[in-house]
């Protein structure tokens, strides 16, 4: 469903991403791994429209989306999280989820001002969807807390829930386990698998935690210093000499 072809991104003299290709099929979890500064987040930024790549193509379905503005890409069903959590801190947890659903509630101003029955119905639906996902990630009791006051692990989960209420086709997670304790990482593991199994969402995952990556990925792409190093199933990657030398070996 998503194909990245020979993507390159240059910042002045620095070639941060050099000819990286990857593809994601429906119902699949694909990981991108590589040492710090390898260019993983930059690939995400290109895919989600925050950067316009300097070379290569990104196809979603059969539509070329490289250079499409970020907000339009997310409307296509390609939604991401950030390496450093980005919540609407001074809004409540449930408001964070309602903001994300603005498109489901896109009635005109007057309908909203006068609370027409049609508007109320849609509003109730988005509230229900928010409640559903809050329960799913275990935050229902904190619905009216300010998002900025949540514990770190809770913020991570809220960010994923906020993506899910937009009903995406493809979810891009940038180091979702960073800063989580082992128990939280295990929970996250279950959640990501369930997103694929129960909600039919494909996932692209950037992650440092190798156990997490090996356990849940269908396929893995390794990049090193902006260049693709290897790709394959977790087993293939585990036994790939280049990878062992460049990445696993040094750890």
């Amino acid at each position, binding site marked *: 469903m998503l194909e990245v072809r020979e993507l390159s991104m240059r910042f002045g003299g620095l070639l941060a991403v050099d000819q990286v290709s990857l593809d994601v099929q429906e119902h699949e979890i694909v990981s991108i791994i590589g040492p710090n500064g390898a260019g993983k987040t930059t690939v995400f930024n290109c895919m*989600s429209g*925050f950067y316009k790549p300097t070379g290569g193509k990104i196809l979603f379905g059969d539509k070329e989306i490289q250079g499409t*503005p*970020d*907000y*339009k890409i*997310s*409307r296509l069903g390609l*939604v*991401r999280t*950030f390496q450093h959590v*980005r*919540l*609407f*801190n*001074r*809004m*409540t947890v*449930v*408001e964070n989820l*309602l*903001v*994300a*659903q*603005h*498109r489901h*509630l*896109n009635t005109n*101003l007057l309908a*909203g*001002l006068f*609370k027409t029955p049609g508007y109320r119905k849609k509003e109730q639906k988005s*509230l*229900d969807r*928010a*409640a*559903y996902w*809050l*329960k799913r990630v275990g935050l*229902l009791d904190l*619905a*009216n807390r*300010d998002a900025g006051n949540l514990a770190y692990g809770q913020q991570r989960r809220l960010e994923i829930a*906020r*993506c899910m209420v*937009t009903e995406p086709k493809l979810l891009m997670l940038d180091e979702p386990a960073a800063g989580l304790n082992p128990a939280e990482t295990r929970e996250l593991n279950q959640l990501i698998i369930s997103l694929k199994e129960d909600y039919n969402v494909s996932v692209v995952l950037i992650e440092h935690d190798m156990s997490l990556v090996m356990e849940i990925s269908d396929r893995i792409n390794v990049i090193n210093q902006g260049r693709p190093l290897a790709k394959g199933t977790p087993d293939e990657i585990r036994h790939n000499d280049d990878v062992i030398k460049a990445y696993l070996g040094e750890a």
Partner: protein
Amino acid sequence: MATSNLKHALFCAIITLVVSYPILGFNLVSQGTSVGLEGANPTTVTAVFLAALAVFLFQLFRDQIMSGLGRVPKPALPTTRNMSDATRVRMQNLIILFVVIGAAIWPFLASRGSVDLATLVLIYVMLALGLNVVVGLAGLLDLGYVAFYAVGAYTFALLSQYFGISFWVALPTGALLAALFGLALGFPVLRLRGDYLAIVTLGFGEIIRILLNNWTSLTGGPNGIGGIPDPTLFGMEFGRRVKEEGNISFHDFFGIAYDSTHKIIFLYLIALVLAVMTFFAIRRLMQMPVGRSWEALREDEIAARSLGLSRTGVKLSAFTIGAFFAGFAGTVFASKQGFISPESFVFLESAIILAIVVLGGMGSQFGVILAAIAVTILPELAREFSEYRMLIFGAAMVLMMVWRPQGLLPMRRIHIHLDKPE
């Protein structure tokens, strides 16, 4: 006791002394070789020092006093705490209802001057509620807000002068035109943030004022436009004599004696209705997708965009809707004054409206209303110290920022009830 507490207490006491100097209108004079304090008799000086001492002691023992207060059982609070959100909102609406009814009856008992002043307060309430959308909710620092106020006022003035258009037609026209100007300003500043945005909006405000000042053939320039008509009530005029053929005057219709306060009260009531409408419209908007998207953009623009919010759309809607309410206020202002000139729309006005929003507590509608009342009425009460008005105002701002940076009544988020999913 920590030394920081002592330092802080000393600082506060000195501030109290310094601030009381201009407020009480003291004056330093040289008497021979020594310096004396003019305008101060021994009792006031003692009072000032006592006040400073009180501030000092309070700040020094603040922690103890506060925790002491905390230990005192509060009989009233638990009930409000445990109230469900639905009840709290209902209580709030009830209080608003009473306040509005009170405000509607009050002018019939009050003096002409105070009703007139209250109309001005209501105009500032509208302005501040509108600017609150742009600055408090969307987080866009707009220093040229007065331009939209001017557009509303001049729309009415010009339409009435050239086409004899009445207040009731000019009211929506002025607001819509101001909204259009808001949209027009929105486009060039879309990519700007923070300081840059502030400077460009400041420039925009000045452009409008200078345009009004120099386009003499249309606007009369610095001489302004006079003879702006009063609003009519179902075609009834409030003047002593009917100006327009076919109209009847208010006092003739009801067979009462002519009284110039009728007009003042009528204008006040119009301003009241408009201010209440503004309040409820914006309160509603805040709970709608548009309002939430303003706040989302303020909180984190990148996250907002990653969720499909277009920066363009969100910013433009905030500017447009904020300007709309300034247009309302401008039309009422023109009608109240009967005469307007560019002098009413200088940068200082923008600054005052912004100060109201900041003092009240960004985003908080109740806070903004409270601050609008305070900022408009207090200088009137302190007329005798008019030279020190801006000084007092500045000092109040500084003190607020030191002690209560979140504003008088910080915004309180509305709790949303969720049905438990099965």
